[in-house]
């Protein structure tokens, strides 16, 4: 009987400890009551119903909390310092090029080899890109059109980083942001991204013309820089890409070579 009582007590302690720990497990940062009261809506999908149910999963303050000021520490202080590079992740995961578009989506382009890298640049049909996309990074001056850029490393030996990936022209601009940074790459690894058709490198939205549009992809590695370029023009009505104008070549994109 005594032993059972001890076991029962242990069970109660475990139950209480477990429930307490579960209650603090969610990393949901505390938000100030004022912020919740003012605008429980999405900044991203403003025309839709606020996800109140999801909010209720994480925010469990009692109503009384809303009536008094709190001195809850700002959870944002938990974020990494913004003036220093982020720490390198402990594990380096392999990276691969983005899924390739369906053949029917490719309007033109091709693959070029530069050093140990193969670069594939295509102009593609992609309904995700346009004037009013679900995210600004899917903005395109030409509705439903985008530039797909990818690279694959074919070197025999792993390449120690950092390897910076940039896109845009000219490359890299003073204010260019690398779209990715890799600590190491190995044979068969790759990367890439898609961007909208941008009639101006700095202005969004931009007035378009029939002047050539260029986009380039460059990898800056400890052993050299490698890249490729695609250029094309719009149709006379400026509503689409002229497939015959699409050419892929080497940087700096002055005299494009035909795709290999």
């Amino acid at each position, binding site marked *: *009987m005594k032993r*059972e009582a001890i076991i*029962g007590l*242990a*069970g*109660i302690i475990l*139950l209480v*400890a*477990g429930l307490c720990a*579960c209650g603090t497990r*969610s*990393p*949901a*940062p505390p*938000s*100030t009551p004022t*912020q*919740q009261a003012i*605008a429980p*809506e999405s*900044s*991203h*999908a*403003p025309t839709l119903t*606020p*996800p109140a149910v*999801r*909010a209720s*999963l*994480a*925010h469990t303050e009692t109503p009384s909390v809303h009536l008094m000021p709190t001195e809850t520490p700002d959870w*944002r202080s938990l*974020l*990494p310092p*913004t*003036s220093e*590079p*982020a720490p390198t992740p402990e594990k380096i*995961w392999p*990276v691969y090029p*983005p*899924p390739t578009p369906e053949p029917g989506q490719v309007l033109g382009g091709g693959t070029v080899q530069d050093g140990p890298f193969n670069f594939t640049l295509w102009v593609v049909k992609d309904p995700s890109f346009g004037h009013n*996309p*679900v*995210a*600004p*990074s*899917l903005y395109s001056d030409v509705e439903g059109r985008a530039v797909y850029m990818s690279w694959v490393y074919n070197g025999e030996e792993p390449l120690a980083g950092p390897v910076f990936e940039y896109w845009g022209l000219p490359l890299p601009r003073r*204010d260019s*942001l*690398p*779209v*990715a*940074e*890799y600590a190491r790459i190995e044979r068969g690894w790759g990367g*890439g991204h*898609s961007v909208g058709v*941008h009639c101006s490198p700095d202005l*969004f*939205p931009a007035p378009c013309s029939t002047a050539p549009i260029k986009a380039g992809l460059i990898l800056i590695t400890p052993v050299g820089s490698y890249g490729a370029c695609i250029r094309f023009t719009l149709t006379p009505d400026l509503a689409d890409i002229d497939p015959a104008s699409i050419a892929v070549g080497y940087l700096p994109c002055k005299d494009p070579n035909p795709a290999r």
Partner: protein
Amino acid sequence: MATAMKKRWSRVLALLLIPGSLAYAASVAPVWAGHYTGWFTGYAMGNRYGGAGVEIRQGHFANHYYAWCPNDPAAWWTWGTRIDTDSPIKQHNQSGGDVYYSTFYLEDVGDPSCSMGNYWVDIYFGRWENRPSSDPNYCYCSGVTSPGFCYAASANSCSDAINFGRQWRGYTGP
């Protein structure tokens, strides 16, 4: 009588021990359980507050909402869920300097049509605006509420988001 008492005690003990042990085990299990790959996009400006009710800022991200995209497992993550990207994402601060982020917290939702696929991540690039308030595109960014809420700065977060494009990336999460 004593046997019946013992049986009752055993049931009570079982009822206490089983959920207690499960709750304790769940509490000490590692928080980081998975590595995912999916499309990454970027956004900027927009409304001041996100779906979670906090001011959206750099270091936050949006993903699908489970009522809109119930088939996306990530849509069920709670507000404040932390993810760590395989490689850092570079952004600009208010002065135009470089800042790196590889840790992001879920504070907003987007893509109600679920077009970006499972484990989609939409990185917030900030609300820095380097154009004068008289500019017709002041605080404007295609794809979000415009004009949105922004701060005067030497950088333009919308340009940064647009230039980010759509990337296929990996990250660690719940």
